[in-house]
């Protein structure tokens, strides 16, 4: 049996080698199909990884709570325009919900920052020290401010990478420098490590953090002391996020004295929710890829079936001879199946090579990140095998059902 299979494979290769043009054209469908799938999956995986990295910059296991919207005579304000969330809400949440490791809060505004003879309009964030740990901010130099700074409304600032680039000379050390925000001098005590774009595409490094209390009293001039633009919480485990979100909702509804028929006056988003949106996008992409792959493999398979039917007709006499000297049905079936599978496998391997080259080229030329996964290659290989098997079955059976007498007489 091993000798039979081996010799049949050699024969198949020789027959295909004899009709190189024909074999090549037949394989083209499979080649293009597999190459397209490999290239697109690699690009898709690259994009997905990039998005995941962006989501990870939010921090680890983060819950974000926004205030609701104001509604005056039916005109609704923008997200977070209401002043329903306060610092005491955040402190209460931490006290009441053991799942929450920590809670933080922030207010933000875009303001002019001046250093020496340079100025820049950047986002000023008044935050609690806990905010920095929840969002996983790290430092390239200096360090964070502390609870003491918050309590004393110290004029200290942490500057983001974009701010450093725009306010400071290259190579100049920002830590220790004094910048002015709304004419209030702040001493820079830390430079934040860059995070890049957020998943919404905004620059997360165009940011300055100052203690929340300092922001309230000396920069923003808030009329409602203690109101925050966003609250943040974090849990130990990803799996705790939904439960924590539900508990936060209960606590806040109780604190805000909302009746059961009233809507929440806040919005809760977990990192998992945000990831899900992105996952949905990549699922759509995967489905599309699957559709493309199916169509091209189908077309490739039909091409293989077509050429095999031609081959069966051309070699009717040969089949007759083989039957006369003792080939059983499965011998004939195997012969044509192996031929079909050789075609589809060679096509698949060429497609894999082409697809990987295409992905690498995309990275090289367009600069898109691509990830070539071994899984996709194995699956492509397997699928081209299955295509050959499936579309080879009909011609192979047709050959095996020939009547030896008629086949021998065939002209």
């Amino acid at each position, binding site marked *: *049996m091993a*000798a*039979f299979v*081996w*010799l049949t494979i050699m024969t198949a290769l020789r027959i295909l080698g*004899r009709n190189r043009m024909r074999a090549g054209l037949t394989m083209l469908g499979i080649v293009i199909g597999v190459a397209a799938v490999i290239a697109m999956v690699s690009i898709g995986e690259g994009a997905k990884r990039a998005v995941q990295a962006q989501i990870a910059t939010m921090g680890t296991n983060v819950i974000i709570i926004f205030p609701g919207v104001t509604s005056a005579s039916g005109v609704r304000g923008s997200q977070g325009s209401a002043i329903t969330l306060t610092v005491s809400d955040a402190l209460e949440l931490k006290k009441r919900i053991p799942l929450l490791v920590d809670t933080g809060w922030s207010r933000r505004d875009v303001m002019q920052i001046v250093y020496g003879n340079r100025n820049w309009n950047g986002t000023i964030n008044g935050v609690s020290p806990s905010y920095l740990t929840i969002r996983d901010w790290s430092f390239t130099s200096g360090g964070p401010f502390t609870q003491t700074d918050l309590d004393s409304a110290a004029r200290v600032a942490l500057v983001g990478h974009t701010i450093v680039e725009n306010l400071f000379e290259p190579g100049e050390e920002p830590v220790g420098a004094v910048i002015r925000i709304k004419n209030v001098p702040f001493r820079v005590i830390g430079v934040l490590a860059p995070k890049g774009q957020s998943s919404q595409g905004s620059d997360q490094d165009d940011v300055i953090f100052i203690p929340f209390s300092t922001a309230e009293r000396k920069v923003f001039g808030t009329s409602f002391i203690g109101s925050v633009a966003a609250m943040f919480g974090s849990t130990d485990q990803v799996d705790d996020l939904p439960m924590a979100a539900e508990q936060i909702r209960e606590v806040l509804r109780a604190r805000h004295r909302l009746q059961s028929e009233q809507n929440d006056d806040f919005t809760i988003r977990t990192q998992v929710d945000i990831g899900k949106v992105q996952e949905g996008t990549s699922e759509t992409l995967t489905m599309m890829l699957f559709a493309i792959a199916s169509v091209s493999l189908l077309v490739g398979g039909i091409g293989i079936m077509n050429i095999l039917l031609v081959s069966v007709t051309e070699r009717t*006499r*040969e089949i*007759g*001879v*083989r*039957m*006369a*000297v*003792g*080939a*059983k*049905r499965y*011998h004939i079936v195997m012969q044509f199946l192996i031929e079909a599978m050789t075609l589809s496998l060679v096509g698949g391997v060429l497609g894999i090579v082409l697809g990987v080259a295409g992905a690498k080229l995309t990275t090289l030329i367009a600069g898109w990140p691509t990830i070539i996964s071994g899984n996709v290659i194995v699956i492509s290989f397997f699928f081209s095998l299955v295509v050959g098997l499936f579309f080879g079955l009909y011609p192979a059976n047709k050959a095996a059902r020939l009547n*030896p*007498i008629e086949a*021998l007489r065939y002209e």
Partner: protein
Amino acid sequence: MASLIECDDVWKIYRVGDVDVQALRGLSLTIEQGEFVAIMGSSGSGKSTLMNMLGCLDQPTKGHYRLNGVEVGLLTPDELAGIRNQQIGFVFQSFNLIPRTSALENAQLPLFYRGLSLKEQRAKAAEALGRVGLHGREDHYPTQLSGGQQQRVAIARALVTSPSLLLADEPTGNLDTQSSQEIMRILETLNRDEGITIILVTHEVDVAAYAAREIVIKDGQILSDRKTKAGPISSPVGG
């Protein structure tokens, strides 16, 4: 002991459109091991049908055909293939070698389906080619061989399995006189020296003359059946 071939009231009826064609009509025939039989007859006489049946390519519609005591009419297509592989060698008028495949590989073909190792296949095929005088031409392709040589490859292919029955259907029909004589001498030698039973279909009298028994078929029945040579035909060879 059983005869090699026993045909007992064999009928073969084809349906062509709405008409039944009776190709064989109650034919009975016995052939012993070691005989050299020529079957003659005009076209349409049923001799091809008879050959196909004797070669286990076809089965009778009615009646019994026993080869080495096995009732062929009861076998499945794969069992028939097995019998052809083990017991029968075919030589065709148009050689029927597989194109673009070397003489050696053509001769190997029956052993290939027998599942022998490649080494054994090659050794036996080379030996068979040697027996028909084609030593040294193992790697030639059919197109590089003359008609007579191609037919010798075909004989080697038929011999390679050491069959008990060799069926030759107009083996010299496509050959010139000299090649025809060579082929017939090979067949004669195989019959005489190795005791292989040979059934030969021909319409040429001088080719039929190599055989020791001549059967004439007409309208699906045996018209005449006579011994043309005295000799070893009646004493079974090899036991």
